[in-house]
Protein backbone atom coordinates (compact mmCIF):
# COMPACT_ATOMS: atom_id res chain seq x y z
CA UNK A 1 0.00 0.00 0.00
CA UNK A 2 3.00 2.31 0.62
CA UNK A 3 6.34 2.91 -1.03
CA UNK A 4 9.42 4.30 0.62
CA UNK A 5 10.77 7.68 -0.47
CA UNK A 6 13.87 8.73 1.43
CA UNK A 7 12.76 7.88 4.98
CA UNK A 8 9.04 8.43 4.36
CA UNK A 9 6.26 5.97 3.58
CA UNK A 10 4.08 7.35 0.79
CA UNK A 11 0.60 5.95 0.07
CA UNK A 12 0.94 4.64 -3.47
CA UNK A 13 -2.66 5.21 -4.59
CA UNK A 14 -2.71 9.00 -4.41
CA UNK A 15 -5.33 11.29 -2.92
CA UNK A 16 -8.52 10.04 -4.50
CA UNK A 17 -8.48 6.27 -4.15
CA UNK A 18 -11.01 6.19 -1.31
CA UNK A 19 -11.46 2.41 -1.38
CA UNK A 20 -7.74 1.68 -1.08
CA UNK A 21 -7.39 4.22 1.75
CA UNK A 22 -10.21 2.47 3.67
CA UNK A 23 -8.58 -0.88 2.98
CA UNK A 24 -5.20 0.37 4.21
CA UNK A 25 -6.71 1.68 7.45
CA UNK A 26 -8.38 -1.69 7.98
CA UNK A 27 -4.97 -3.35 7.83
CA UNK A 28 -3.31 -0.85 10.17
CA UNK A 29 -3.16 -1.30 13.94
CA UNK A 30 -2.03 2.32 14.41
CA UNK A 31 -5.03 4.01 12.79
CA UNK A 32 -6.37 6.93 14.86
CA UNK A 33 -9.24 9.06 13.56
CA UNK A 34 -8.30 12.74 13.29
CA UNK A 35 -9.97 14.55 16.18
CA UNK A 36 -10.80 17.57 14.04
CA UNK A 37 -13.91 16.50 12.17
CA UNK A 38 -13.32 19.23 9.62
CA UNK A 39 -10.19 17.50 8.43
CA UNK A 40 -11.97 14.21 7.69
CA UNK A 41 -12.36 13.98 3.95
CA UNK A 42 -14.21 10.71 3.44
CA UNK A 43 -17.94 11.11 3.62
CA UNK A 44 -18.74 7.39 3.72
CA UNK A 45 -16.65 5.15 5.97
CA UNK A 46 -14.58 7.26 8.36
CA UNK A 47 -11.92 4.65 9.10
CA UNK A 48 -9.74 5.58 6.16
CA UNK A 49 -6.05 6.47 6.07
CA UNK A 50 -7.25 9.74 4.49
CA UNK A 51 -8.86 10.56 7.86
CA UNK A 52 -6.02 9.35 10.09
CA UNK A 53 -4.36 11.64 12.61
CA UNK A 54 -0.97 10.39 11.41
CA UNK A 55 -1.24 11.22 7.69
CA UNK A 56 0.71 14.10 6.25
CA UNK A 57 -0.60 15.30 2.92
CA UNK A 58 1.93 15.87 0.16
CA UNK A 59 1.54 17.06 -3.40
CA UNK A 60 0.61 13.71 -4.93
CA UNK A 61 -0.60 11.62 -1.96
CA UNK A 62 0.03 11.39 1.81
CA UNK A 63 2.86 10.15 3.99
CA UNK A 64 2.16 7.84 6.92
CA UNK A 65 3.99 9.44 9.83
CA UNK A 66 3.34 6.47 12.10
CA UNK A 67 5.15 4.09 9.75
CA UNK A 68 7.90 6.69 9.57
CA UNK A 69 8.29 6.55 13.37
CA UNK A 70 8.70 2.80 13.61
CA UNK A 71 9.88 1.45 10.28
CA UNK A 72 12.45 3.89 8.93
Amino acid sequence: MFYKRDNSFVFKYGKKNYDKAIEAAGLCKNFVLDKDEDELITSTKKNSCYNCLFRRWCSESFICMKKGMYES
Partner: protein
Amino acid sequence: MGKNKVYIAIDDTDEVGYYTSTGEICEDIREHIDKNYSRTTPITRHQLLLDDRIPYTSHNSSMCFTCELDLETFEQVKNFILSYVAYKSAHSSSPGVCMGFERDICDRDALIAYGLDAKKRVLTKESAYETAAAQKLFLKEVKNKGNGIIGALAGVALRAYGNDGRIKGKIKLGKKSIAVSELLETGLFEEVRLKHGKTADKNHHIVIDEYLKGVYIDHKSVLLVEEYGGFYKPLVKENLLDY
Protein backbone atom coordinates in the same frame (compact mmCIF):
# COMPACT_ATOMS: atom_id res chain seq x y z
CA MET B 1 -12.15 55.53 16.32
CA GLY B 2 -15.18 53.27 16.52
CA LYS B 3 -15.33 49.60 15.81
CA ASN B 4 -13.98 48.37 12.51
CA LYS B 5 -13.62 45.07 10.74
CA VAL B 6 -10.63 43.04 11.91
CA TYR B 7 -9.11 39.94 10.28
CA ILE B 8 -7.67 37.29 12.61
CA ALA B 9 -5.72 34.23 11.43
CA ILE B 10 -3.52 31.60 13.04
CA ASP B 11 -1.43 28.74 11.70
CA ASP B 12 0.95 25.96 12.70
CA THR B 13 -0.19 25.11 16.21
CA ASP B 14 0.02 21.31 16.25
CA GLU B 15 2.45 18.42 15.90
CA VAL B 16 2.04 14.82 14.73
CA GLY B 17 -0.64 13.08 16.81
CA TYR B 18 -1.53 16.24 18.83
CA TYR B 19 -4.82 16.21 20.71
CA THR B 20 -6.19 19.39 19.15
CA SER B 21 -5.90 21.26 15.85
CA THR B 22 -5.37 24.78 14.58
CA GLY B 23 -9.03 24.82 13.54
CA GLU B 24 -10.22 23.98 17.04
CA ILE B 25 -7.88 26.51 18.68
CA CYS B 26 -9.17 29.12 16.25
CA GLU B 27 -12.74 28.14 17.14
CA ASP B 28 -11.93 28.67 20.86
CA ILE B 29 -10.59 32.14 20.08
CA ARG B 30 -13.61 32.98 18.00
CA GLU B 31 -15.94 31.90 20.79
CA HIS B 32 -14.04 34.01 23.31
CA ILE B 33 -14.35 37.10 21.12
CA ASP B 34 -17.99 36.37 20.39
CA LYS B 35 -18.75 36.12 24.10
CA ASN B 36 -16.72 39.11 25.27
CA TYR B 37 -16.16 41.61 22.48
CA SER B 38 -17.92 41.33 19.17
CA ARG B 39 -20.03 39.33 16.81
CA THR B 40 -17.75 37.15 14.70
CA THR B 41 -18.01 35.54 11.28
CA PRO B 42 -17.49 31.85 10.54
CA ILE B 43 -13.95 30.52 10.27
CA THR B 44 -12.63 29.77 6.81
CA ARG B 45 -10.01 27.09 6.21
CA HIS B 46 -7.50 27.98 3.52
CA GLN B 47 -5.41 25.26 1.87
CA LEU B 48 -1.82 26.30 1.24
CA LEU B 49 0.91 24.62 -0.80
CA LEU B 50 1.73 20.99 -0.02
CA ASP B 51 5.47 20.71 -0.49
CA ASP B 52 8.15 18.71 1.33
CA ARG B 53 10.19 21.86 1.83
CA ILE B 54 7.47 23.32 4.08
CA PRO B 55 7.52 22.02 7.68
CA TYR B 56 3.74 21.68 8.16
CA THR B 57 2.28 18.91 10.33
CA SER B 58 -0.41 17.34 8.20
CA HIS B 59 -2.44 19.73 6.00
CA ASN B 60 -0.73 23.12 5.67
CA SER B 61 -3.99 24.95 6.09
CA SER B 62 -4.62 28.29 7.75
CA MET B 63 -7.71 29.49 9.65
CA CYS B 64 -9.21 32.97 9.50
CA PHE B 65 -12.31 34.84 10.68
CA THR B 66 -13.36 38.44 11.18
CA CYS B 67 -14.90 40.53 13.95
CA GLU B 68 -15.44 44.19 14.82
CA LEU B 69 -13.05 45.87 17.28
CA ASP B 70 -11.79 49.31 18.29
CA LEU B 71 -8.17 50.11 19.11
CA GLU B 72 -8.51 49.28 22.78
CA THR B 73 -10.28 45.96 22.33
CA PHE B 74 -7.92 45.09 19.45
CA GLU B 75 -5.04 45.18 21.94
CA GLN B 76 -6.97 43.12 24.49
CA VAL B 77 -7.90 40.51 21.90
CA LYS B 78 -4.35 40.42 20.53
CA ASN B 79 -2.91 39.74 23.99
CA PHE B 80 -5.48 37.05 24.62
CA ILE B 81 -4.74 35.31 21.31
CA LEU B 82 -0.97 35.37 21.82
CA SER B 83 -1.19 33.86 25.29
CA TYR B 84 -3.91 31.37 24.32
CA VAL B 85 -2.03 30.13 21.25
CA ALA B 86 1.20 29.83 23.28
CA TYR B 87 -0.67 27.79 25.90
CA LYS B 88 -2.74 25.55 23.62
CA SER B 89 -0.29 24.89 20.82
CA ALA B 90 1.89 21.79 20.73
CA HIS B 91 5.31 21.86 22.35
CA SER B 92 7.19 21.52 19.07
CA SER B 93 4.85 23.65 16.93
CA SER B 94 5.82 26.99 15.41
CA PRO B 95 2.64 29.08 15.62
CA GLY B 96 2.06 32.42 14.00
CA VAL B 97 -0.69 35.00 14.46
CA CYS B 98 -1.82 37.67 12.03
CA MET B 99 -4.36 40.41 12.81
CA GLY B 100 -5.29 43.73 11.32
CA PHE B 101 -7.97 46.28 10.57
CA GLU B 102 -9.39 46.00 7.10
CA ARG B 103 -9.33 49.78 6.70
CA ASP B 104 -5.54 49.86 7.31
CA ILE B 105 -4.73 47.56 4.41
CA CYS B 106 -3.00 49.85 1.92
CA ASP B 107 -2.79 47.62 -1.14
CA ARG B 108 -5.42 44.92 -1.12
CA ASP B 109 -4.29 43.45 -4.43
CA ALA B 110 -0.71 43.01 -3.20
CA LEU B 111 -1.98 41.28 -0.07
CA ILE B 112 -4.21 38.95 -2.10
CA ALA B 113 -1.28 38.18 -4.41
CA TYR B 114 0.69 37.05 -1.35
CA GLY B 115 -2.13 34.73 -0.32
CA LEU B 116 -2.43 33.22 -3.77
CA ASP B 117 1.36 32.81 -3.88
CA ALA B 118 1.22 30.80 -0.65
CA LYS B 119 -0.92 28.27 -2.50
CA LYS B 120 1.65 27.88 -5.28
CA ARG B 121 5.14 28.69 -3.94
CA VAL B 122 7.37 28.15 -0.93
CA LEU B 123 7.52 31.52 0.85
CA THR B 124 9.89 32.85 3.48
CA LYS B 125 9.31 34.51 6.83
CA GLU B 126 11.13 37.57 5.51
CA SER B 127 8.62 38.08 2.70
CA ALA B 128 5.80 37.57 5.21
CA TYR B 129 7.16 40.33 7.45
CA GLU B 130 7.67 42.65 4.49
CA THR B 131 4.13 42.08 3.22
CA ALA B 132 2.59 42.46 6.68
CA ALA B 133 4.47 45.69 7.34
CA ALA B 134 3.45 47.11 3.95
CA GLN B 135 -0.20 46.30 4.67
CA LYS B 136 -0.09 47.48 8.30
CA LEU B 137 -0.95 44.06 9.66
CA PHE B 138 0.21 42.73 13.03
CA LEU B 139 2.26 39.55 12.51
CA LYS B 140 3.85 37.61 15.35
CA GLU B 141 5.79 34.39 15.84
CA VAL B 142 4.49 32.79 19.03
CA LYS B 143 7.17 30.18 19.70
CA ASN B 144 9.93 27.98 18.25
CA LYS B 145 10.70 28.90 14.64
CA GLY B 146 7.45 30.78 14.20
CA ASN B 147 6.96 29.57 10.64
CA GLY B 148 3.23 29.84 11.17
CA ILE B 149 3.42 33.55 10.40
CA ILE B 150 3.60 32.67 6.70
CA GLY B 151 0.33 30.75 6.79
CA ALA B 152 -1.33 33.18 9.18
CA LEU B 153 -0.67 36.09 6.84
CA ALA B 154 -1.82 33.97 3.90
CA GLY B 155 -5.01 33.22 5.84
CA VAL B 156 -5.82 36.92 6.17
CA ALA B 157 -4.90 37.50 2.52
CA LEU B 158 -7.11 34.69 1.22
CA ARG B 159 -10.01 35.71 3.43
CA ALA B 160 -9.68 39.24 2.05
CA TYR B 161 -9.63 37.71 -1.44
CA GLY B 162 -13.07 36.27 -0.74
CA ASN B 163 -12.88 33.32 -3.10
CA ASP B 164 -11.00 30.68 -1.20
CA GLY B 165 -11.59 28.12 1.48
CA ARG B 166 -14.17 25.94 3.12
CA ILE B 167 -16.18 27.13 6.10
CA LYS B 168 -15.26 25.34 9.28
CA GLY B 169 -17.97 23.26 10.90
CA LYS B 170 -20.97 21.28 9.81
CA ILE B 171 -24.53 22.49 9.96
CA LYS B 172 -27.10 19.98 11.11
CA LEU B 173 -30.69 21.06 10.64
CA GLY B 174 -32.41 17.99 12.02
CA LYS B 175 -34.57 17.56 8.93
CA LYS B 176 -34.36 15.55 5.74
CA SER B 177 -35.07 18.37 3.31
CA ILE B 178 -35.47 22.14 3.16
CA ALA B 179 -36.46 24.63 0.48
CA VAL B 180 -33.62 26.85 -0.75
CA SER B 181 -35.61 29.94 0.29
CA GLU B 182 -36.17 28.57 3.79
CA LEU B 183 -32.48 27.75 4.19
CA LEU B 184 -31.51 31.28 3.15
CA GLU B 185 -33.95 32.72 5.68
CA THR B 186 -32.08 30.93 8.48
CA GLY B 187 -29.02 33.05 7.71
CA LEU B 188 -26.78 29.99 7.85
CA PHE B 189 -25.84 30.48 4.19
CA GLU B 190 -25.87 33.62 2.09
CA GLU B 191 -26.34 31.80 -1.17
CA VAL B 192 -27.04 28.37 -2.63
CA ARG B 193 -25.32 27.63 -5.92
CA LEU B 194 -25.07 24.77 -8.33
CA LYS B 195 -21.54 23.43 -8.55
CA HIS B 196 -20.88 25.12 -11.87
CA GLY B 197 -21.79 28.53 -10.52
CA LYS B 198 -25.46 29.05 -11.37
CA THR B 199 -27.63 30.37 -8.55
CA ALA B 200 -30.02 27.73 -7.23
CA ASP B 201 -33.79 28.00 -7.76
CA LYS B 202 -35.23 29.25 -4.47
CA ASN B 203 -38.31 27.10 -4.82
CA HIS B 204 -36.38 23.85 -5.12
CA HIS B 205 -35.85 21.59 -2.14
CA ILE B 206 -32.47 20.36 -0.91
CA VAL B 207 -32.29 16.74 0.24
CA ILE B 208 -30.12 16.55 3.35
CA ASP B 209 -28.24 13.35 4.02
CA GLU B 210 -26.47 14.25 7.26
CA TYR B 211 -25.17 17.83 7.40
CA LEU B 212 -24.46 20.92 5.31
CA LYS B 213 -21.03 22.42 4.71
CA GLY B 214 -20.27 25.75 3.12
CA VAL B 215 -17.50 27.20 0.99
CA TYR B 216 -16.42 30.82 0.69
CA ILE B 217 -17.15 32.39 -2.69
CA ASP B 218 -17.56 36.07 -3.58
CA HIS B 219 -17.13 36.93 0.14
CA LYS B 220 -20.18 34.84 0.95
CA SER B 221 -20.98 31.63 2.76
CA VAL B 222 -22.22 29.44 -0.08
CA LEU B 223 -23.80 25.99 -0.10
CA LEU B 224 -22.89 24.11 -3.27
CA VAL B 225 -25.47 21.65 -4.60
CA GLU B 226 -26.08 19.44 -7.61
CA GLU B 227 -29.25 18.31 -9.38
CA TYR B 228 -30.70 15.14 -7.90
CA GLY B 229 -33.89 13.81 -9.46
CA GLY B 230 -35.93 17.01 -9.24
CA PHE B 231 -34.25 18.03 -5.98
CA TYR B 232 -30.87 19.43 -5.02
CA LYS B 233 -28.27 17.47 -3.12
CA PRO B 234 -25.32 19.15 -1.31
CA LEU B 235 -21.91 18.26 -2.70
CA VAL B 236 -20.20 15.62 -0.56
CA LYS B 237 -16.87 16.30 1.14
CA GLU B 238 -14.87 14.59 -1.57
CA ASN B 239 -16.16 17.19 -4.04
CA LEU B 240 -15.29 20.15 -1.83
CA LEU B 241 -11.59 19.40 -1.51
CA ASP B 242 -10.63 21.91 -4.18
CA TYR B 243 -11.97 24.78 -2.06
